[in-house]
């Protein structure tokens, strides 16, 4: 590990560092000490000194000697680290560095040099980095793309429910991006990330997702620019500057609303915290040595403290702080857990709950905020207990007294949690004046249903706690591989499978009688199939990030159009070949856009009148079935308008005026280029291009789209895709002297027809009645100009196929068998021969062509039209 890497890891630890968390501080200390060693080894004395000083500061904090408040320490450290980075990267003379004075280094206060550095990094606009960095840059871009996806996911989550952890995670990502882009001297990205990180600073409990989304978009554009795919994006630094005075999101007019909404989040989150504290306390009661529980309780109070402070809720903050201090002593073995301490903590929980209740009333009714009656007494009791450990702490500020008002617990589980505690503490409670009134009120109900089973409940709780596993993050090791190499490997595996089949099916092999030898050969076959499976699975990626993009698109469109849309995603863990996942995005975007823009009704009144929920609903689902992937997009909007589509199609000559097409045929007209029924063109959709793109893209992936729609009830688009592009399951058929492959995805069944089943219908050629349906017959022999092929369907076989809802019967000579084949491109010369989607190498070594069922149907239709 070189020094720069070490610094990277230090700054990472620093971001994650929590001054009140002992172990995080020790690891930080170790990092600094390690860096000091490295600096000494590379003869960078100043750096070594500075890191030694930093380590000393951390040590002071850990050992409790620190006089200053702890938060600035982290600031000092991060400043130091960034100076280190500057020094290493730009080869600055370290003696010029302006280390924070707190480090106690007597460096010259050379502000000029730092400002010079700053100027350089702040330079606006995007510069192309040096070519030397190309490799690192590639890695960076690759990694950053993933991180941007993560950012988007987190932002979407934050929009739904503001969560401290998500914000922290966002901050971490931006910080890493900042560091990496700084390393590559991508100053524009670095600056933006830096500013974003600032905006996400600890106190900022709310974030402006709109701006962050913009930042994310800008970053993706910049990445594209660096990978040479597009123009340099305009700088967006201005979005920060424009409202940099206000705290980003608290735009003055809606401060109150936002704050109240966030307070709501805070309350519900805090209540969850209290629930978990209850559970953990119960565990502690039976097992006082369970350090995990202490830590969990500590964490709950700690995060409440932070959040409360940011809302300026001093009561909660003080209460949480005092309790935390007490717990800290236990954690550091200065105090031992006894019944009294557990009671105190239980009381803290109770007080916290009642304070939160007051807060809730305050938000909902606007009544002045009240304070829990017992607070002062309780605080001093905590304090007293803490003092027993002989350590002095700053006394809490006095707080006003307010009337008490406690609602009964809402949920049964919550009651259950309170009950055993009430029983345990009943005696002390009574001695404790006014708080008991509250408890009796609660108790009256609780005793009736709770006391008898108190033991059972607490047992249950303990069990529950045990079952709740400590979250373990198992980081799977991953290797980045050039996708070209991977393709080559998959190709070669395909060849291996073919070669294996060739050997196994060769005549010579059939003559061998040795059972032992045959066993070995079949073992070989088993291994090669296994390799094939592994090979295919290597290219498989979950649809997750694609679906997430869709969530973003729905959000954007619904904002633009002002429609309320509830977007539900399921099955995003379904895995697909990377090539498919990469190309499925566009068609999905078009379908989803249409669903929101055209499908969902514009005003909610119309929806209500139709008996639907006010919010429009759009579902995106993915699932596996029969070796295929189904992706479904469903909306509960207006549905497709049959008459309008037909009128348009007749107008454009796609349909004869007197024809009576089936529903399926009408829906497939939607995919015709230029056909649109939208009255007005919006910037979202309406040009009639989208659905054409959908069809082309999906067919390029050898998939199909199906539409189901009921006017007034919404539409469902079903996309069916093969699992992978490289290997398909196919039926081998014979037409004349040649072998062909029909993808099994399109095959419904095969039948040997009888004469009466075949009828000739005027203008529509030969028809075949199959399960009371009349299907057009396509003579592959004629289509392929194969003179040896049979012209009499009764002598051959009819394969019933289906594509995009259209069915037909293919007349073939023989069904040879079913194979897994590796499909290969026929090359550029065959661009016009679109009857085939590719070729497959058969076990015989010959090439069999793979039919493109969609174009077979299309060409047959064209031929029919010509004949008429």
């Amino acid at each position, binding site marked *: 590990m070189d020094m720069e890497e070490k610094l990277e890891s230090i700054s990472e630890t620093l971001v994650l560092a929590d001054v009140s968390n002992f172990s995080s501080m020790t690891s930080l200390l170790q990092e600094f000490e390690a860096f000091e060693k490295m600096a000494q080894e590379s003869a960078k004395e100043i750096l070594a000194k500075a890191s030694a000083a930093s380590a000393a500061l951390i040590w002071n904090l850990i050992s409790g000697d620190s006089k200053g408040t702890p938060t600035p320490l982290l600031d000092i450290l991060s400043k130091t680290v960034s100076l280190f980075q500057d020094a290493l990267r730009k080869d600055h003379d370290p003696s010029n560095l302006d280390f924070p004075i707190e480090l106690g280094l007597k460096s010259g206060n050379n502000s000029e040099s730092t400002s010079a550095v700053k100027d350089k990094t702040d330079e606006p606009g995007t510069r192309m980095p040096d070519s030397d960095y190309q490799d690192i840059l590639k890695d960076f871009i690759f990694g950053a793309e993933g991180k941007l996806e993560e950012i988007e996911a987190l932002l979407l989550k934050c929009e739904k429910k503001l969560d401290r952890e998500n914000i922290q995670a966002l901050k971490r990502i931006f910080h890493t991006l900042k560091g990496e882009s700084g390393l590559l001297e991508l100053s524009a990205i670095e600056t933006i990330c830096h500013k974003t990180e600032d905006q996400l600073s600890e106190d900022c409990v709310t974030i402006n997702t709109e701006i962050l989304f913009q930042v994310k978009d800008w970053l993706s554009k910049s990445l594209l620019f660096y990978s040479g795919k597009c123009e340099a994006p305009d700088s967006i630094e201005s979005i920060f500057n424009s409202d940099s005075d206000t705290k980003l999101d608290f735009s003055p007019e809606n401060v109150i609303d936002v704050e109240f909404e966030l307070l709501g989040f805070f309350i519900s989150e805090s209540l969850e915290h209290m629930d978990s504290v209850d559970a953990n306390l119960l565990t502690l009661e039976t097992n006082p040595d369970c350090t995990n529980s202490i830590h969990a309780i500590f964490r709950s109070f700690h995060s409440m403290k932070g959040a409360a402070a940011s809302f300026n809720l001093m009561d909660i903050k003080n209460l949480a702080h005092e309790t935390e201090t007490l717990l800290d002593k236990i954690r550091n073995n200065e105090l031992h857990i006894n019944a009294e301490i557990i009671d105190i903590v239980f009381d803290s929980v109770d007080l916290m709950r009642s304070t939160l209740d007051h807060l809730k009333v305050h938000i909902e009714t606007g009544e002045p905020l009240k304070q829990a009656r017992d607070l002062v007494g309780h605080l001093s009791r905590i304090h007293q207990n803490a003092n027993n450990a002989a350590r002095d702490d700053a006394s809490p500020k006095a707080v006003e007294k307010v009337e008490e008002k406690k609602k009964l617990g809402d949920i049964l589980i919550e009651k259950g949690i309170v009950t055993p505690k009430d029983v345990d503490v009943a005696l002390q409670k009574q001695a404790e004046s006014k708080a008991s009134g509250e408890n009796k009120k609660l108790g009256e109900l609780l005793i009736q249903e709770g006391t008898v089973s108190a033991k059972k409940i607490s047992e249950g709780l303990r069990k529950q706690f045990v079952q709740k596993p400590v979250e373990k993050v198992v980081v799977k090791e991953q290797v980045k591989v050039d996708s070209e190499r991977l393709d080559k490997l998959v190709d070669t595996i395909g060849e291996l499978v073919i070669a294996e089949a060739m050997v196994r099916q060769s005549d010579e092999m059939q003559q061998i009688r040795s059972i032992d030898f045959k066993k070995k050969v079949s073992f070989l076959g088993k291994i090669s199939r296994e390799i094939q499976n592994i090979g295919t699975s290597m290219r498989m990626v979950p649809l997750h990030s694609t679906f997430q993009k869709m969530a973003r698109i729905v959000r954007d469109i619904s904002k633009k159009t002002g429609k309320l849309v509830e977007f539900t995603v399921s099955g995003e863990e379904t895995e697909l070949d990377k090539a498919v996942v990469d190309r499925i995005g566009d068609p999905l975007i078009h379908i989803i856009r249409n669903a929101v823009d055209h499908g969902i009704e514009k005003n909610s009144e119309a929806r209500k009148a139709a008996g639907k929920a006010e919010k429009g609903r759009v579902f995106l689902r993915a699932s596996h079935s029969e070796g295929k992937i189904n992706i479904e997009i469903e909306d509960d909007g207006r549905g497709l308008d049959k008459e309008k589509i037909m009128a348009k199609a007749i107008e454009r000559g796609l349909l004869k005026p007197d024809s009576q097409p089936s529903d399926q045929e009408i829906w497939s007209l939607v995919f015709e280029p230029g056909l649109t029924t939208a009255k007005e063109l919006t910037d979202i959709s309406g040009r009639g291009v989208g659905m054409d793109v959908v069809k082309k893209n999906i067919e390029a992936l050898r998939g199909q789209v199906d539409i189901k729609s009921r006017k007034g009830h919404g539409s469902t688009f079903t996309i069916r895709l093969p699992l992978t592009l490289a290997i398909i399951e196919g039926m081998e058929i014979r037409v004349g002297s040649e072998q062909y492959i029909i993808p099994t995805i399109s095959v419904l069944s095969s039948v040997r027809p009888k004469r009466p089943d075949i009828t000739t219908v005027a203008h529509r050629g030969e028809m075949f009645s199959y399960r009371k349906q009349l299907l057009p017959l396509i003579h592959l022999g004629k289509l392929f100009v194969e003179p040896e092929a049979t012209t009499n369907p009764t002598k051959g076989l009819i394969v019933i196929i289906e594509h995009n809802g259209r069915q037909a019967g293919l007349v073939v000579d023989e069904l040879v068998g079913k194979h897994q084949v590796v499909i290969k491109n026929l090359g*550029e010369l065959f661009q016009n*021969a679109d009857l*085939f989607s590719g070729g497959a190498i058969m076990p015989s070594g010959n090439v069999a062509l793979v039919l493109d069922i969609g174009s077979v149907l299309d060409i047959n239709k064209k031929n029919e039209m010509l004949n008429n």
Partner: protein
Amino acid sequence: MSEAAVAENVNEQIKSIEEKAGKYLTFQLEKEFYGLEILKIQEIIQMMNITRVPRAPEFIRGVINLRGKIIPVINLRKKFIMEFSDDTQRTCVIVVRFEHNARQVTLGIVVDEVSEVINITGEQIEEAPEFGTEIDTGFILGMGKVDKKVVILLDIEKVLSTGEISLVSKVAGAETST
């Protein structure tokens, strides 16, 4: 055209002919000798089973499996509108590889017989004869004259992009006249 321009034109022609000098693989088609730049040739393989591709352009005979890769095989006889003849023992496939539209293209050419690799100098090369507007000779790099034989040097990329051409008789006629 001014004299200077003519002189420049001639210079350019000489220059381009100089560039065309080099090693060529010659093969026979209907008793005619043709040459392909050796640098574009990947290998020569024996005749193998060719899968016909229905509805493809007629000069494409089909596709073959070249060690796991599917490549198209073109029939120069069809391209040059020669009579179809059955494959013989000597019939083989020349696999060429070149860049077309910034993509690597590999394809096979069925020929009656592969002759030899010859070295053709600039002096031995003459410009492609012109047969008037109805016949495009753009696919001919030049005419090489070696040992009293005339070798038609083909520009394989252009062979694929130009339509089918009745070449044989015209070239034969041109040959006798020179």
